[in-house]
């Protein structure tokens, strides 16, 4: 079965991105497909490579980046939500005249159309938020 997943809250502050990660891991282990995870609202903050969590805590961004690498999951950050909140890739930074970018490996920035497409393609859509 094909799952689509929406993550609507940022890392550490809400448990949503942790629960989503455990759900996706369990779905893949059970033989299901998770072609895409869409990060919306504060969820876009999951995809920053600049976080430095304490050593006795999980690294949420690295968990997702590793998952994308191993399973080819498409981690899409919503561009509109990301711009409001200061999440950028190199391209967007250059285009907007910003002197830095902060997106992590395995994530990409794209439009809300990718969320709708995911809803159309998936057999089940899951939302993890607040």
């Amino acid at each position, binding site marked *: *079965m094909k*799952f689509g997943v929406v993550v*609507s809250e940022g890392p550490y502050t809400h*448990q*949503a991105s942790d*629960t989503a990660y*455990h*759900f996706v*891991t*369990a*779905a893949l*282990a*059970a033989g*299901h497909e998770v072609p895409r995870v869409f990060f919306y609202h504060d969820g876009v903050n999951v995809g920053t490579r600049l976080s430095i969590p304490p050593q006795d805590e999980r690294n949420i961004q690295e968990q997702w980046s590793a998952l994308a690498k191993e399973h080819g999951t498409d981690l899409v950050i919503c561009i509109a939500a990301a711009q409001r909140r200061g999440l950028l890739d190199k391209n967007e930074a250059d285009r907007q005249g910003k002197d830095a970018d902060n997106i992590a490996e395995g994530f990409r920035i794209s439009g809300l159309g990718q969320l709708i497409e995911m809803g159309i393609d998936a057999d*089940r*859509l*899951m*939302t*993890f*938020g*607040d």
Partner: protein
Amino acid sequence: MATLHTVNKSPFETQALLSCLGHTKAGDTVLLIEDGVYGAVGNTALADAVAGLGGAVTLAVLAPDLKARGIDEGRLMDGVKTVDYAGFVELAAEHDRTQAWL
């Protein structure tokens, strides 16, 4: 054509669980996750409202979130089913759609 409802808020803090219960249909499952798991505990000010559902709707709770909060399964209301993350995935696959009550 049944729905899996997820509730991730404490029923003592927000109205999400009550609103969810008001919109379930026979055959649906309500899965309590994250801070929502407090809604599955018996002997609280809220347990009666939850028990009032009758048997038409299955109440389930995510065990990893229960353990995290130190809630012994013996304290759950009668008839509450516990699942792990694999069981959560199974529930999502078995039902026709999932609705998150945020």
